């Protein structure tokens, strides 16, 4: 039997009430049938209704949905939203109480078109599932209106406010809210919204790959809103006005937590645990905060004094940070477990992947262990001497950072070698442009085959030309060597920058029962970020493999939230908000085929930028702060694409 009774999701109506076999899988609806400890009866949201349990009362659900939209989510800042959803709520409640009239259904229908004139899509889209129920479950409504029918409430209802951008953001920041605050010249309030989900806005306002912007509905009419830069604007406002952050931690709980790693995941986790009143200590193997952000992202993209300020803010909440302490070397996980009530591992991915080229482990002078090592040595001033000609191998952000840093370290020629074309480069395209403006030389469709040495010293790298073949599992066309096309690029240094893996050697042979993946990353369960070892949580690059700062922040936040429950109730479980966050995320919120009825034609505002020749010689920040008045103009482009989802859970 089908798991779907009825669905109007995506305007695609499937009605199995009188038989039929369309199911979730055939509809490509990634909706779970279970919710925490119950069964999903029905799901209601911006794109329709999905009924999984025929016993679920859709009229009662619609009434509850509209009540929550009006009383919990509607901001009240536009007439149809404020008043129209109230009229809908009361009308539905009246019908449910048996006092409705058929005329009420017409009123509800007429309100849908008024709600299309709403200021944002929250109330506007909330009418869609309700009107679907009126259209497809009219008999149920008429049963109430004629009298006699009693509402059958579900065991529980759970709702969630989302938006395509906030859903796509791994940290699930309430993006429309913080952008609206900027639009209203309320920069401090904007930062407070960001800080509900992310403590390091100065970082993610600068170096985030901003997946959110790929789910921006504004892009469907012109260009995506500059969501990332808005975050920097809010964060810079506080810094530039010498404001003290307003957060005040809760009363001490008496619980102690150790966070390993002062990178984005660790800082985030510590921040939220400290706010809950837990006593947190962070240890880090480096001499300063930020992890990969500090030593892997050059200062011209992420000035370290600002990173330090973010860590200072975390410390100001009572978090102790001790540098130069390495897990597995200076302290063991066993010792930590004995002394602390919970542990968070945010140890990053600091091991460079090998190129698979002969001689790379021979210890040649001029051969760098990896991009991340090169960047770290330069950042920490560890006496790294950069010679005249440098070849960096790889197409990611680290490779780009390496070629650009090499120029700043005195290289006369800095060459990036990549086996595919520019289009396939995983690095941000603007960074590739930036590197080009700074006179980095690119050699595309070539792959190293051999290191050329003289007296144990690198003198060049032999490469072979590549041609693009059939697409691989990543969807990119697979490069294949062109036989006999080898040639040598003379150079004094070769830096492979083709990826990093976590270094989990600290787990040692004992492994503490913590499962690892075949990519040497830590396994956690069910979105709780808890490992197989109870009380030990993990997140960021060490859990996922080398990924983004914002993912690490998302992990750190989620872990802190679950750890708080673990520390206070002994249960490492998700709450409703998080469970629904994951459900909605699987379902997907952004629809890139949507016809957005908004006038486009407004270009996206850009930050001023230092020009290529001027910047290539120093580590001064390249992108200058966007003037606040310009940020207000940009923020006004936001369409506030809120949506409300609700699930009815039956026992």
């Amino acid at each position, binding site marked *: 039997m089908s798991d779907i009774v009825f669905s109007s999701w995506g305007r695609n109506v499937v009605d199995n009430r009188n038989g039929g076999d369309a199911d979730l899988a055939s509809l490509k609806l990634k909706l779970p049938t279970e919710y925490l400890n119950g069964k999903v009866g029905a799901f209601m949201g911006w794109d329709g209704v999905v009924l999984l349990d025929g016993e679920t009362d859709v009229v009662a659900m619609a009434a509850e949905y509209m009540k929550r939209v*009006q*009383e*919990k*989510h*509607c*901001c*009240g*800042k*536009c*007439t*149809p939203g*404020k*008043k*129209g*959803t*109230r*009229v809908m*709520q*009361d009308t539905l409640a009246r019908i449910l109480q048996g006092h409705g009239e058929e005329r009420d259904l017409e*009123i509800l229908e*007429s*309100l849908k*078109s*008024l709600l*299309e*004139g*709403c*200021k944002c899509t929250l109330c506007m889209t909330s009418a869609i599932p309700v009107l679907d129920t009126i259209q497809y479950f009219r008999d149920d409504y008429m049963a109430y209106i004629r009298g006699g029918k009693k509402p059958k409430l579900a065991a529980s209802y759970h709702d969630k406010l989302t938006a395509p951008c906030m859903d796509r953001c791994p940290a699930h920041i309430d993006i429309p809210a913080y952008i609206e605050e900027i*639009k*209203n*010249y*309320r920069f401090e309030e904007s930062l407070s919204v960001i800080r509900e989900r992310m403590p390091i806005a100065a970082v993610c306002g600068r170096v985030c790959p901003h997946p959110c912007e790929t789910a921006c509905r504004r892009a469907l009419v012109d260009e995506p809103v500059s969501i990332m830069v808005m975050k920097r604007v809010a964060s810079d406002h506080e810094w*530039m*006005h*010498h404001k003290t952050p307003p957060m005040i931690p809760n009363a001490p709980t008496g619980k102690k937590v150790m966070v390993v790693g002062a990178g984005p995941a660790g800082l985030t986790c510590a921040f939220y645990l400290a706010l809950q009143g837990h006593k947190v200590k962070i240890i880090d193997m480096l001499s300063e905060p930020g992890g990969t952000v500090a030593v892997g992202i050059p200062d011209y993209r992420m000035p370290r004094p600002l990173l330090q300020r973010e860590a200072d803010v975390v410390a100001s909440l009572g978090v102790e940070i001790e540098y130069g302490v390495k897990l597995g070397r200076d302290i063991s996980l066993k010792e930590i477990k004995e002394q602390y009530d919970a542990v968070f591992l945010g140890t990053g991915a600091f091991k460079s992947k090998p190129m698979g080229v002969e001689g790379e482990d021979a210890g040649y002078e001029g051969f760098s262990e990896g991009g991340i090592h090169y960047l770290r040595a330069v950042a920490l001033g560890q006496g790294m001497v950069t010679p005249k000609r440098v070849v960096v191998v790889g197409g990611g952000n680290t490779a780009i950072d390496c070629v650009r840093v090499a120029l700043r370290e005195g290289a006369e020629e800095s060459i990036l070698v990549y086996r595919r074309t520019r289009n396939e480069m995983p690095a941000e395209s603007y960074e590739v442009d930036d590197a080009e403006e700074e006179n980095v030389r690119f050699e595309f469709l070539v792959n190293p085959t051999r290191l050329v040495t003289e007296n144990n010293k690198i003198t060049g790298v032999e490469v072979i030309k590549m041609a693009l073949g059939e697409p691989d599992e990543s969807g990119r066309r697979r490069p294949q060597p062109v036989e006999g096309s080898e040639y040598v690029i003379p150079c004094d240094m070769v830096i492979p920058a083709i990826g990093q893996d976590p270094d989990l050697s600290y787990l040692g042979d004992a492994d503490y029962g913590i499962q690892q993946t075949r990519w040497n990353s830590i396994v956690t369960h069910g979105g709780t970020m808890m490992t197989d070892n109870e009380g030990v949580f993990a997140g960021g690059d060490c859990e996922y493999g080398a990924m983004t700062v914002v993912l690490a922040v998302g992990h750190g936040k989620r872990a802190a939230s679950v750890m708080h429950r673990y520390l206070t109730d002994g249960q490492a479980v998700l709450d409703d908000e998080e469970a629904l966050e994951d459900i909605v995320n699987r379902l997907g919120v952004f629809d890139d085929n949507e*016809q*957005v*009825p*908004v*006038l*486009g*034609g*407004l270009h996206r505002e850009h930050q001023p930028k230092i020009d290529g020749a001027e910047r290539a010689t120093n580590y001064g920040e390249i992108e200058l702060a966007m*003037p*606040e*008045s*310009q940020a*207000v*103009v940009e923020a*006004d482009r936001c369409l506030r694409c809120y949506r409300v989802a609700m699930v009815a859970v039956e026992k």
Partner: protein
Amino acid sequence: MSHKGEKSMVNLTIDGQQVQVEQGQTIIAAAEKLGIKIPTMCYLKKVSTTGACRVCLVDVEGVGAPVTACNTVATEGIVVTTTGEELVKKRKDMIRLMLVNHPLDCPVCDAAGECDLQDICFEHGILDQPFTAEDVAAGKITDWPLIENVPSRCVLCEKCVKVGHELTGIGDFTVVERGDMAYIGRKPGNDIDPYIEGNAVEVCPVGAMISKPFKHSARSWTLDKVPSIGFAGGSLEQVDLNVKQDKLFRITSQDDATINNGLLGFDSSFGYGFVNSDKRLLSASVNGEEVAMAEALKIVAAKAGELGGSAVAGLSSARLTVEENYLFQKLFRTAFKSNNIDSEARFGMLRASETLNQVLGLRGASAAAEQIAGADAVLVFGSDITSEQPQINYLIQKAYRQNDASLLVANMRKVRIAKESHCFLNYAPGSEVALVSALTKLIVDNGQADEAFLKQYVKNSADVKKALAKVDVAKTAEACGVDAALIVEVAERLGSAENVAIVFGGDVTKSANCEETVKALANLAMVSGALGCESGGLYPVDEKPNMQGLLDAGVAAEYLPGYVACTEAGMTAQQILEGIESGAVKMLYVAGTNPLVSYPESARWKAALEKVELLVVQDILASELTEMANVVLPAAAYSEKSGTYIACDHRAGVLTKAVAPKGASQSDKAIFAQLFETVTGKTQTLCNEKILAEMAGSCELFSAVGLTGSRYLASCSKKAYAPAAAALTFSDCGDGAAANGLTLIAGKMHAHTGVTSTYAAGALEIAPEGYIEISSGDADNLGVSDGAVVTVKSAQGTAQGKARVSSYLPQGVLFAPYHFAELNIQQIMPAGANYTSVELTK
């Protein structure tokens, strides 16, 4: 609302008509240009777009649904239709939704007759209501000071929220609650000096924001609106006096038509009530006996004649018009043959003016106030600008928010504008000169000085470095109690800004270090380019409306009108005081000022005044001073007379007589003229233009005399400041006197101006009495609790008042507002100072 850079133009079509607007403009603005009116409830041109009411829906070709004209930016080539059956139906439904549960209390609603909701319903013929819902509106909020909020009438247009946050920087209104329960609430604010945003009432399209002083006092349509200017703050906002049957009911302003774009200061919103006070002087009196004005004037004339010359002295006021002050000095100099005239400017603005003239050849501001709005950096030094001159504050807010200017605030107290600033230099009393000099030195050392200006205009430009050599930034930082890095940052921001505006106020002009600080500020202005830039300048400000005009009119012993040196000997205020004490001065004529409250050493003044043979007090309100007076002359209030006020930036505004003088009171001008005629037997014209022309003929101050403007007039124009080559002096500044121990600052608080506001119910609702503000640190150390009565004692005397424990003061600093006769903080202030060392006891 635009960042810098040239704006390109876009072309669009609205209802078949072509129009071109600047990029970034909305459809509604483009329609307005064509004279097409699109109905709206929430659109307010002067704030950022809101898009709340959803009434202004229009169709744009190719867009799937109607869009709101008020917040949709026009793009090239769009074709817009503003009318049509569907659109009108939708608009009407939006209005109907707005009316769901809107109370039908129009008959008792203050907005009736000027309500946008009434108008829009009427225009659209809304006669039915298909929608019903439970009424969940929050109850009426009556416990705010001065404003009553009626959420059930509110359409949540957010105009009040935005005008406060975006234009005045003061408002604390915000939307609270969700859904249909949402309403306008207030964020917790400064409870020491709570500011209620009167502009919220001005911009409210319905009767949600109601002014308590005005509530239920008059129907809007019965009020005449008489164009005039504000009566407080030397930036002279253009306002409409709303009057009926010879009574002032309220003051409003208009967007677009006024230089202040409809924005009011606190006094205009709530502080005007003193003109209707039952303490108004309604008749002349001699030794307590009511007499006719002419009778009283005869006695004054006779005594002046009897005593003759130097035994007669007079004090005038910055509340009086230019013409009145001109006649005042003329009366003394030509009729009484006395040159003993002065004013409270002696203790403040005159000193600043003298210093500016000495080093810059400048009297007052160097440029028009509007220039502040275009500045790239604004330094507000020693001024609680929000309180002293609201309109200057609004221009600073404009520079800050719309021009991305650096906002730099230096003050002894954490004044209201400090919370918005990029950098706040909370300097210790007595460290002003050192602080300004350090900023100047840093700019010079950074190579950011305006060399071209220095070279051309400063005669000793070669000495700049030498004069600054002794300045030690680290030591200064220590003396100021300010982080050196912050001083460096402020210098960097000032130095790198192309357009710099420097505003300074009463904390500087009234201080013991006034002259040295003003010299230092003049140095900073020259070096930072404030005097040479396109959009900026140096702005001394004062709370009194006609401080500049008072000085221009020659009310000072050493100056005839227009700063022409007076060769006759004459006494300054301080010399008059001493003269009374020594018996040399036997008759004192006080017009529109009260030395018993507003002059430093007020207790000494009181003792002296007991000795005067004839004390003549010409004022609008009864006070301890009129009680002491032998002759009381009732004067007309500002709404009852006409004349010129000259703003701090030299703009001449015209005060319009909107109502008849109360009782037997007469304008100060008429009183002076009659007295002049009585003494000299000559006639004195009362025509403002003729008086101004007479004044202009005797000096070089004016470029033109004569009424200009349409609704809001100007009566003359002054010559613009234009320094000659090598005419300015870079000063080698001293250190200024440092303060020791616990220091009490006397100053203005926002709800009050001078002493008259203590007769205004609106101002008294915010601050009914004086208080002594004390930091929580000092309060803890001294065991003082909030509200406890404390005594402060200085070398001059003691004063007693209630303590207010505050987070706006650094430790070691106390503050007391000077307006209140009962607290009378000026009795402990030395002459020519606004702070003094005190002992505080419980």
